[in-house]
């Protein structure tokens, strides 16, 4: 059984997934909770992008990949990309 990630790992991972375009940015005027399905889908896309096994879970390999040195730009150019172009 995969050990449960710590609350801090989950929080950092959501931040990472948002920063690199896998999750939509939070609305500035409201707190936003990600649904488990949305989070799992985002993790799966990230895992596919990174060449990892698509588990949809914040497993050890996924967390380790998130800690790798990388380029600052988002991987998924959705809303984040549009924001960047506007500026």
């Amino acid at each position, binding site marked *: 059984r995969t050990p449960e990630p710590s609350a801090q790992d989950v929080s950092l991972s959501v931040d990472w997934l948002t920063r690199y375009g896998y999750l939509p940015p939070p609305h500035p005027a409201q707190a936003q909770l990600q649904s488990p399905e949305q989070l799992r889908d985002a993790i799966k896309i990230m895992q596919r*992008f990174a060449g990892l096994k698509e588990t949809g879970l914040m497993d050890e390999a996924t967390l380790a990949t998130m800690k790798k*040195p990388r*380029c*600052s*730009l988002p*991987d998924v150019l*959705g809303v984040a990309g549009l924001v960047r*172009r506007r*500026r």
Partner: protein
Amino acid sequence: YALTGSFWKKKQLFWRVRSFPQGSALSQDIVRNLMHYALTAWGTEVGMTFQEAEPRVGTEPEILIDFARAYHKDSYPFDGPGGTLAHAFFPGDHPISGDTHFDDEEVWTFGESDSGGTDLFAVAVHEFGHALGLAHSSAPNSIMRPFYQGPAGDPSKYRLPPDDREGIQQLYGKGPNSPHPEPTRKPLVPPPQPPGQPPDSPSAPVPDRCSGNFDAIANIRGEVFFFKGPWFWRLQPSGQLVSPRPAKLHRFWEGLPEHVVTVDAAYSRPSDGRILLFSGRQFWVFQDRQLEAGSPKLLTELGLPPGEVVDAVFSWPQNGKTYLIRGEQYWRFDEAVHSVDPGYPKNLNLWEGAPSAPDDVTIGNKGDTYFFKGTEYWRFAPGSVVAEPGSPHPMGPDWLDCPPSAPGPPAPR
């Protein structure tokens, strides 16, 4: 590879290093040389030239290079050693377009193993890919993968991986076969041209996705593929097109014969994840992008009458059966016993409200069934065989990032 949708409209660009790394073992000359070689790696493939601009002379260069720390007046603050290494701005008219920033708190190295720091040349090649219009790639060997992959080797001999070459050539076309322009620094080894590939040009005519009328549409592992002639577009699960410019059919589906220039229908077989492309009386089976041995196969092998072709194929999640549609009829194929169910073909009017001879039918990521025809689509809720009220809807704005008033021929009824 993935394109950002923006590119430079000229073939000669200027660059300048505005600020150099502080306290680095790399001299300013080495940094400038590495930047030169990193840009040349891209330019060689597309016939672009990059000229270093003198400080404070004439207009600002397109690509301004900075080594900066923490917050540096853009929205991508650096985070000290490790973490984020660098970023660049895509081509455009804004003054910051093309600019490239490196985190000055990294230990930048050249010609050392990984343990000594981060190879500046490798990161520069990656960032200049962004500055020229490429987004991140998930291809295993691509320099445009978002994660640092270690030193890139001798800059004077470096050649881009195939995925990146194809990406940049989609934007700017292939470089001329003439000898490489005179080097401004150390001699470069001109890379050999890959044999047997037809020249591609960004100006080559491509079909208009907003006019609909696709040959085939398929949901393949969460991404929707729209086929039209020898081209296709990909829509990511996020709803974002991989690129507004279509990709070439034969560059992606490895092994598909050149004479197959139209895909009539396509679907992903749930039982084994294989992808089936139908054209005429045959179909080809792919595992990922590679053609499987034994292809092509005949539609008669699925139980269809000799000479029959298909308009649309999809697998319905509710019963796991595969539906093959032709005109106003359809056959139901059972993957488990590998034969058409008895009593077929039947009339397509089972799907209430669906158009006859649809361009294709596919299943959405939430289990909805979508019939596509012309410029419109019909949605069926999961498990339902009745089109939802309001169908059909215009495809362009909902699927393909097209304006609501996109001109196009009306869907044939």
